[in-house]
């Protein structure tokens, strides 16, 4: 069990990831504390997504380990997932379900209670008013992304791992999302994001790590 009083931190120790037979990065070590935003940079194919998937525990690194509050996430498993919200390239929503159904189901699986009424409110907040009960397959790319991002507004996870969260979003949504991330970090959460856009982010505690060069 994780002690609730300890300062949550994510430690990456000597991480090495291999895709095919190419080493994406090796001996990567850093730590992220609560209240910090980590911006991962790097050109296409430099291993950003791989690193994020390794941090989320979806991908087994070649060597090294990821620790949450001092323990390897491999041994924590569901205990770590409780503190984690990962949004990848795929939105993770079902096209046959409506936005409300998608949001409620992902909330239940995250261990939260979300009433139907609250789900409608949240989707309104994220700019999907009028589209809440349409099957998601009829929504545009940006709207689908918003359905996926609506989870950020209801989730209480400490660690947010967001892979290209700004893709397909319009200016308003980008601003809204930045604000949401800023608040999350200000409340002591950890946010790890990748993005190619120059985003005028966000408070004092922003750090940048560049992948794909020797100076990692």
């Amino acid at each position, binding site marked *: 069990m994780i002690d609730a009083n300890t300062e949550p931190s994510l430690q990456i120790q000597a991480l090495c990831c291999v895709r095919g037979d190419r080493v994406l990065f090796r001996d990567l070590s850093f730590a992220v504390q609560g209240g910090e935003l980590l911006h991962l940079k790097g050109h296409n194919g430099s291993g950003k997504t791989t690193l994020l998937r390794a941090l989320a525990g979806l991908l087994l690194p070649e060597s090294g380990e990821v620790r949450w509050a001092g323990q390897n996430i491999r041994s924590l498993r569901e205990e770590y997932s409780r503190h984690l919200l990962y949004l*990848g390239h*795929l939105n993770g929503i079902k096209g046959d379900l409506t936005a409300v159904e998608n949001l409620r189901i992902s909330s239940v699986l995250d261990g939260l209670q979300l009433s139907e009424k609250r789900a409608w409110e949240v989707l309104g907040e994220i700019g999907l008013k009028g589209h809440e009960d349409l099957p998601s397959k009829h929504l545009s790319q940006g709207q689908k992304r918003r359905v996926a991002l609506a989870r950020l507004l209801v989730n209480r996870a400490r660690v947010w791992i967001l892979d290209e969260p700004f893709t397909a979003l319009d200016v308003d949504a980008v601003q809204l999302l930045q604000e949401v991330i800023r608040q999350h970090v200000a409340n002591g959460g950890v946010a790890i994001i990748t993005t190619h856009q120059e985003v005028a982010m966000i408070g004092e505690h922003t750090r940048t790590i560049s992948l794909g060069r020797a100076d990692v």
Partner: protein
Amino acid sequence: MFEPLYWIIRRDLTIAMRRRSDIFTTLIFFVIVVSLFPLGIGPEPDTLRLIAPGIVWVGALLASMLALELIFSADHRDGTLEQMLLTPQPVSLLVAGKVIAHWLVSGIPLVLMSPLLGVQYDLSWEALGTLVVSLLLGTPALSLIGAIGAALTLGLRSGGVLLALLVLPLYIPVLIFGAGAVEATVSGLGGQSHLSMLAAILVASLVLAPLATAAALRVAED
């Protein structure tokens, strides 16, 4: 603990209801395969009665295998599967929910259709009853065992063929006891013992298969 299970089942049933064509393909495949044999072999009641249990069961087996690919592939494509692996819920519980929903959609129609097909083969009422019970116990075991194969072949290019090669050998015990139960009833011995074995296989796969499937899914998403 059972709330996520309920929601997963509800979710998959809702999706299945919104794309009903998937259900009917499996069912129609089953009906056609089983109906082809009387046409090919000829209308000799004694012969038909003899081969009926085996044919209905092999038909159910193939139909259930055909439907397997659908369990995880859509969730894999749209990213909901990787989200399931990242929830605080035990993955094997979510897998169990998905398999139950899958069986309700693809297995139950086979069970309901089977007596009608049995009539084609001139089976007695008693034998029809055993056929239904044996399928009721056997098809969920098929779905549970098949889910392991579906998870292992997830995302592979020729996954369908490989899935058949992986899963069909594992189906053999279910086939033997399922068809055996009906045969025993036809020959007047009573299918009790076969049905008990089927129930045992079902219980064992209910306990073990979700664990194996969950492990296979983690590998598939790596």
